[in-house]
C-alpha cells in the first residue's frame, strides 16, 4: 500500500510525526525531571530527590482525595442516569430523541465558564450547596454525562438487543429485570469505556471547577493552578507528576479496552 505514496511523502510524514511527538512529550519529560531534581536551575547534576513529591503530598493530599471522591461520585451518577438514558435513546430514534441527545451534549460544546456561571447564579444561593463538594459534582456530571451516554449507546446499537428485550417482555419480565439482565450485561464494554472516560475527565476538570470551588472544596487541578502560581518550579512539577501518576492507570485501561474492542470487531469481520 505504501508503494502508492512517494518516498518524499513518507519521509515528510515521518519527520513531521516525530516532530509532533517530540513537541508533545518533551515538556512532559522536562516536568517529570524537574519534579525529581534537587535544584532545577542547576540541572539534573544537582542530584535526584523525592523531597518535592513529599512536600506536595504534605500540602495538597487533601485535593487528591477530594478529586477521587468527586470522580467516583460523578461516575455513580453518570451510571445511574446515563446508562438508562442511553437505552431509551437506542430504542427511540425519532426527532424528539435526537433533539434530546443534541441538548445533552451542549454542556460539552458550551464553554465551562458559562455553565459554571449559570450554576452559581441559579443554585449558588441554596444553603449549604455552594460550599459543599456536591456543587462540583453537579458541574462534573453535566460535563461528563454525554460521554457516558454516547459510549454506552455505541455498545447497545446493532446487537439485536431490542429483539431480546421484546422476547423477555413476552415471557413476562419487568422493565427493570430486562434492563439489568439483558441491556446492561450486553452493553458492558461501552459502559466500561464510558466509565473510564468519566473518571479521566472528572479528575482533570478545571474550567468549571475553578469557579465552583471554595477554599474548602479544592480539587487536584485547582491545587495545580495554585501551585503553578505560587510555588517553586520543582514543587509545581512534582505535583504535576502526582497528577500524571493518577491519570496513568485510567489511560492504560482505556487504551486496553480500545485494543480489545478492535480485536473483537476484527475477529467478527473475519468470521
Amino acid at each position, binding site marked *: 500500500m505504501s508503494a502508492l505514496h512517494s518516498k518524499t511523502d513518507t519521509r515528510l510524514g515521518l519527520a513531521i510525526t516525530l516532530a509532533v511527538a517530540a513537541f508533545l512529550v518533551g515538556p512532559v519529560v522536562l516536568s517529570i525531571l524537574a519534579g525529581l531534581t534537587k535544584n532545577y536551575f542547576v540541572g539534573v547534576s544537582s542530584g535526584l530527590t523525592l523531597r518535592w513529591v513529599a512536600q506536595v503530598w504534605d500540602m495538597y493530599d487533601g485535593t487528591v482525595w477530594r478529586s477521587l471522591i468527586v470522580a467516583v461520585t460523578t461516575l455513580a451518577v453518570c451510571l445511574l442516569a446515563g446508562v*438508562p438514558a442511553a437505552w431509551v435513546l437506542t430504542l427511540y430514534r425519532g426527532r424528539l430523541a435526537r433533539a434530546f441527545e443534541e441538548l445533552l451534549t451542549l454542556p460539552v*460544546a458550551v*464553554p465551562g465558564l458559562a455553565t459554571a456561571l449559570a450554576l452559581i447564579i441559579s443554585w449558588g444561593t441554596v444553603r449549604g450547596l455552594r460550599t459543599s463538594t456536591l456543587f462540583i459534582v453537579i458541574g462534573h456530571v453535566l460535563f461528563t454525562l454525554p460521554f457516558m451516554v454516547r459510549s454506552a449507546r455505541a455498545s447497545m446499537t446493532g446487537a439485536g438487543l431490542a429483539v431480546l428485550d421484546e422476547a423477555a417482555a413476552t415471557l413476562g419480565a419487568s*422493565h427493570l429485570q430486562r434492563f439489568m439482565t439483558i441491556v446492561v450485561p450486553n452493553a458492558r464494554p461501552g459502559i466500561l469505556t464510558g466509565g473510564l472516560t468519566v473518571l479521566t475527565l472528572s479528575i482533570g476538570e478545571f474550567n468549571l471547577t475553578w469557579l465552583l470551588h471554595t477554599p474548602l472544596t479544592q480539587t487536584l487541578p485547582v491545587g495545580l493552578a495554585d501551585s503553578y502560581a505560587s510555588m517553586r518550579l520543582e514543587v509545581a512539577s512534582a505535583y504535576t507528576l502526582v497528577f500524571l501518576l493518577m491519570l496513568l492507570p485510567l*489511560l492504560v485501561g482505556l*487504551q486496553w479496552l480500545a485494543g480489545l474492542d478492535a480485536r473483537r470487531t476484527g475477529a467478527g469481520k473475519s468470521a
Partner: protein
Amino acid sequence: MRRRGWLIFAAPAAALFLAFWLLPMAELALRGASPVHGHSAYMAVVSTPRYWRSLLNTVALSLAAMLVTLLICLPVGRFLAWHRAFPGRRVLVGLLMFPMSFPGVVVGFLIILLAGRQGVINQFVQWLTGDSLVFAYNMGGLFLGYLYFSLPRTIGVIEAAAMQLDASLIEAACTLGASAWRRFADIELPALRPALIGAGAMSFATNMGAFGTVFTLGTNIDVLPMTIYNEFTNYADIPVAAALSIVLGLATWAVLFVAHSVAGSNERGAGA
C-alpha cells in the same frame, strides 16, 4: 407500544439536565438582559470596543491555531494510516495520544517549561546568541498551548478517516498517470474533507472556551474567557459576565452547528 414503558428510564438524565443546565442557562441569558445603568448588559457588551477586541482576539487566535493544527495533522494522520505496522508504532501512537487528557492548566504549565523564563527555548537561545526569548506569557504561549491540546485529538480523527480511504481509487489514478500531488488534491483531500471540517470545528470550539491554559499563562492575555473571569471576580459585574458567556457560548455552538451541517451534507453528497 410495549416500548413506551421505557421512557421513564430517561427521566433522571432529563431531570438533571433540565434543573442544572437548561434552566440555569436560561437564567444566565436573562441576567445578561437585566438593566445596568439603563441599558441591558448585552447593549453594554455590544457597544464597548474593549469587549469587541477581546472577542476578535479570541476568534483570530482560535482560528489560527485550528488552521495550523489541521496543517500539521494532515501529514501525520496520513502517515499513520498508510503505515499500519512498523516497529515502535504502538509506542509512537501512545505518545501522540497521551496528552489528550491533560487539563488546560497542565498544558499551560508545560508551555511555561518550554517557553517560559526558565524554559528550554530561552536557555537554548541564550546559550546560542546571548539574547533571551520568552513568549509563554502572551498570545504566542497561548497559541502554542492551543496547538498542544488540539494536536492529539485531531490526529486521531484524521488517521481514522484516512484509513477508510479507498486505496483502489488511488491505484486507479496511479495507473492513469496522475501525479502524486494530483492524487492528493483530487482524491484524498475531498475524501478527508468531512473529517477535516469536523476536527477543525472541534478544535476551534475547544480553543474558544479554553480557560485553564490562559489562567496559568497569565492574566494579561486578552481573550474572552479571561475577560469573563475578570468581570466576574474582579469587578463582580455579573450581568456583563453573563452576557459575555452567552455570546461566547452562542459563537462556539454556531461554529459547531455550521460545521456539522456542512460536513453532513457533504457525506450525503458523497453517498448519492
